[in-house]
């Protein structure tokens, strides 16, 4: 089963008097349980693609289905709901709420959902912090954590709602290579253990070996597709 189906997706940005064609017709199926890497040079359209799949940006034309739902026609409210329940995000930086501790950051989406009791929320969040190896840092604020530790907390938060899909736009770009690889290994483990679909973008060919599948993007088009 495909968790994401993309048909003829284009994205244009108006820029002054001209138009930037960030995506020029993407067709793509992503099966459930994938650990897929989107690779391409800077400016090739990786971020744009991930944003549209992640329901934080809208397509210019084409169709995008996330878990059977056509997302190009949804309202802001419905997109927000989809992000909260079905999608996890890991950004390059600015991942965490600065005033919340590591544990509270992991709890955050569950509290937004408001379905589990406080005790259950805490228990589940602790489990994920344990899984990313940071239970002993649960009280630390983001500012008191290293870059790698912050990304681990972000992974725990992305997974705590049991989403169908986790998107990570260049998650290792701000980390040294050793830490970056440990983050990718963690994603690998989570993908294997939980079957969660991961899509991460990178411009670093070094990290490709962590992906189960790879697509190359260049100038808004997929290569070899």
């Amino acid at each position: 089963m495909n968790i994401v189906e993309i048909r003829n997706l284009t994205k244009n940005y108006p820029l002054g008097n001209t138009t930037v064609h960030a995506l020029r017709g993407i067709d793509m199926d992503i099966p459930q349980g994938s650990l897929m890497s989107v690779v391409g040079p800077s400016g090739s359209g990786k971020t744009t693609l991930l944003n549209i799949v992640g329901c934080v940006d809208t397509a210019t034309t084409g169709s995008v289905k996330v878990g059977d739902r056509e997302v190009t026609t949804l309202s802001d409210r419905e997109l927000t709901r989809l992000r909260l329940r079905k999608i996890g995000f890991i950004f390059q930086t600015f991942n965490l709420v600065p005033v919340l501790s590591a544990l509270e950051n992991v709890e955050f989406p569950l509290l937004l959902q408001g379905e589990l009791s406080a005790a259950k929320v805490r228990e589940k969040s602790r489990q994920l912090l344990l899984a990313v190896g940071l239970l002993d840092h649960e009280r630390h604020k983001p500012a008191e954590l290293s870059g790698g530790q912050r990304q681990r907390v972000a992974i725990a938060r992305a997974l705590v709602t049991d989403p169908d899909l986790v998107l990570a736009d260049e998650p290792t770009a701000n980390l040294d290579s050793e830490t970056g690889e440990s983050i990718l290994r963690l994603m690998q483990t989570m993908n294997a253990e939980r079957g969660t679909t991961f899509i991460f973008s990178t411009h670093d060919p070094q990290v490709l070996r962590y992906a189960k599948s790879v697509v190359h993007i260049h100038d808004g088009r997929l290569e070899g597709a």
Partner: protein
Amino acid sequence: MLIWRLAWRNLWRHRGRSVVVGGILFMGALLLTFGNGVVSGMERGLQRQVVESFTGDVVVASNKQVDDNVFISMMGKEVEPLYRISEIQGAVDSQAWVEASLPIGKNMTIALHESEGNPGYLFLLGVDFKKWQKFFPQAFQIQGGKFPEPGEAGLVLPSGANKELFQTMGQTFLPEGVTDTLLLPQEARRLSLKTVRHEMVLMGFSNSMSTSDLRMKISGVGRFRALNTIWGHFALTDIESYRTVQGYLRQDEKAVQLSSDQQNVMASDNLDALLADGGVSNSAATTSVAKAIVPTDTGKGSDPVWNLMLVRLKGEGADRGAARLDSLFKTHHLPARALPWHKAVGVIGSLAMLIRGALLGFVGLLFVVAGIVIANTLAMSAMERTTEIGMMRAVGATRWFIAKLMMAETTMLALLFGGIGVLLGAVLVAVTPHLGIQTGNDLLQMVYGGEVFHPLLRPQDLVMCFFELGLVVALASLYPMQLAASITPLDAIARE
């Protein structure tokens, strides 16, 4: 819970800005509270110094009376006579929201100089002394002599009138047997007590042909307890003497009086004759001596004539009360109209309303300025946190969640700093009267709410302050809230 925790920690994290916004809220709330206190104190002061000392809440005048300003009108402007008083008073008193009513006479009179000299001018109130004292308890302090007894004719002079008469006429007046020179105008105290007069000859100053001059005994001197420099121009006399001076005679009285030798006096002493004579002073020789006539407030035809009826209300404001009385007069076809007190005292009322308006305007301005500064600071704070807010939105926070978060932050600040401001303002209002800040200036006395600066906060005023504070904060946070809620995840990502 999550929102309050986030809000509290955000405030703490950005404590510099929190203190700035909080400081504005604090100062705003403090000034707002104090300003409201001054307005309330002033209102109560006006109530005491004007409504409860001189005018009542509503003043009823004849429907022929054109000028609203019946009390402090320019010289020579006559207040129209008010007829059919028993019907009017009956209709007014039967209203549940009317507490009491009191008819009075009021007009300008001339005090004649009995030897060579200029005459003086005097506002004269014709009253039933017993009823007037009951209507305005404690309003007038007798310092020498006494009020005339019922049925007795006499004049009660406040210090202001005495001073003015001395300036125009060069004469001073005290009741017979009163020798305290301190009761004389300051400039007159060095004069011999022998020059002090115990009687005054008053002459009506109206368009009526039947005004007459009358020799009056000075019964008492004293002062109005409030706003004496203003009310002190008004001398009080028994209503019968007043009517005689004004020439307000009932049909049946007229017949009697005209047959007496007063006919003679009146014929020669009306104003036209006086002016034709080329002087006022030499006409004093033929005055009559006042003798009180027992009032006979009987049937319609013989209703005595007044000028005004003062009305005290309960549980109804002056403006609305006057409007209700007006419609009452209309339905009963009564020849009267009602004025709220502030219209009846002319420039005094306008000034009071003006000062009150200015104070409220000041509070309103404060409101707007504080609101703008707060809105600006909050909007800046929202913009600074774009990435953080956008990230929360990406993770699944709704626009409403972000709006609530901003609201929670401002509410906390408002409760904390604004609350302290209101409470401190209330303390300041409570303490100020004990500082004994005094003024002899009548205008300031109106603002001060009395001779001592006396702002006032009743429980409902305090509630109002909190309400106004809440309103400022709510209005000021609308724009920042909407700004924060419109931040999208993309705004956060674009900043990376």
